[in-house]
């Protein structure tokens, strides 16, 4: 019985941001001792200047960043995984991820200025790749097992050309990994504040930059609304992913038994 209460309390705390942020977004007045706001108002999201542009920017940066890093990481990891020094390469792949992203961006900022990439969307996309690419690479490395190499060899022995190999072996067997990698790199990019704010110099206003800007201005109601916009898409995607994993069996990749 005690366990049940404990876990219910824990789940309530975990889900707190999901309802607290929209709730706070609707608050008009919340004087101190009151547990709940005294008055509410319906704030239009359109009231936030440049919000539509920020959503578009965040989406464009995250989607393109996820696509580029997943594809590049997938291709590079395949070549590296079957190299005789693959464990050393794996170690190298980890190094950029261990540094603080903002310090990494800081150490390279001069070169972004030199190439005119500071305060630009392209600059931010490139800056994020410093982290996204090694991450995608490491995530994909575990995929390339000896069994997979044997399958690749087998298809070659049976005379499959490159397109057939990708269509009938590589893609079906890597579908799950590719979706996972896309999702995770999208999240990293969507959540990024450090690289975006440093290389973007606060000029490229993605959603995270906008939250920080409103926090600095002490406009907590707007900050809450934008924060809700940041956390809802990934959570909905997680729910969707769970439903997908449960219900849609056709996405489960298994080799036909022979």
């Amino acid at each position, binding site marked *: 019985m005690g366990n049940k209460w404990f876990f219910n309390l824990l789940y309530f705390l975990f889900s707190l941001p999901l309802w607290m942020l929209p709730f706070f977004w609707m608050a008009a007045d919340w004087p101190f001792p009151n547990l709940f706001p005294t008055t509410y108002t319906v704030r239009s999201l359109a009231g936030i200047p440049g919000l539509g542009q920020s959503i578009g920017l965040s989406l464009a940066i995250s989607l393109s960043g996820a696509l580029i890093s997943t594809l590049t990481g997938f291709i590079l990891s395949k070549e590296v995984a079957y190299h005789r020094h693959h464990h*050393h390469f794996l170690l190298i792949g980890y190094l950029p991820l261990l540094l*603080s992203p903002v310090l990494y961006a800081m150490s390279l900022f001069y070169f972004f200025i030199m190439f005119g990439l500071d305060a630009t969307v392209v600059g931010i996309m490139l800056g994020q790749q410093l982290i996204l690419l090694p991450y995608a690479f490491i995530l994909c490395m575990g995929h390339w097992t000896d069994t997979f190499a044997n399958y690749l060899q087998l298809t070659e022995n049976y005379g499959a050309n490159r397109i057939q190999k990708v269509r009938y072996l590589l893609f079906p067997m890597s579908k799950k990994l590719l979706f996972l990698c896309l999702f995770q790199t999208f999240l990293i990019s969507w959540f990024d504040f450090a690289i975006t704010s440093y290389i973007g110099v606060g000029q490229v206003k993605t959603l995270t930059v906008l939250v*920080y800007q409103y926090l600095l201005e002490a406009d907590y109601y707007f900050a809450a609304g934008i924060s809700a916009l940041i956390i809802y898409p990934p959570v909905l995607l997680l729910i969707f992913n769970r439903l997908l994993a449960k219900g849609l069996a056709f996405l489960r990749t298994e080799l036909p038994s022979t």
Partner: protein
Amino acid sequence: MKKRVLIALFLIACLGPLLTGLVYSVLYSLGAIGWLSQGITLTHWQHVFTAPSTYVSFAFSLYVALGSVTVSFILSFGCVYLLSRPSQRAKPLAFAWFIPLGIPPIVAAFISFLLLSGTGVLARIVWQAGVISEAHPFPSLVFDHLGIGIIITHIMISFPFFTLLQLQHYEKNQLAELMGLARHYGANRRQQIRDVMLPVLFRRSFPVLLLSVIFVMGSYEIPLTIGSQYPQMISPLIIDYVRRFDLQDKPIGYALSVVYTLVVLVLAFFLLRKQTLRYGK
């Protein structure tokens, strides 16, 4: 040929920016480059090693990292123990465990601010409970010198992740069966936890725990949003030096970032070498 090109591309993508940034930072810290550069000097490095703020900042970062990772591990271990009971194991894992994974650090810091500040939700609950009658007796847990707010926020993000990770290790290492075997040989519940469950889960989680310490040490958004001005964690301190109005402080920031980078790389090298070599086999 194609293989070599791709491997070269990989090395350029991973090592190129890292080494370029490191060399640039070293040159800047030595005064060899930069707007107000007057030739190579060790003054900035002397300042880094003599200023108390350097040691305070490193110690504070380590304290926050060790504090949040240790508490997260203990909490998650407790939850895994409770979730591994036969009555709980039959149920599927609640979706709520995944929600904190979808919260970025900047939003987590903002939520902590709403909950833990002097007039936040927690202070209001305490007031409603009749413990305080004014706002000021409630200690603000954000912008505090002990970094309590930063630690709580990191725990909020990492504790569910550690729980999911340990649950995976619990299943993979067949701990239920191992503990059953220990019970069969006469071990009581406490001995099963202390001598079977804890060593296995700690050993399996150790690399991730160490990596988490490194990540938290270098965290930026959370200490920037709810951290105090003094002591500062290492990332905000470095950015503070580099962005100051006085350009003479900029090389000090770069020197500090070189020290931080080297510390992290050396730590990671020894940790990961062992792990990746094992993985490689």
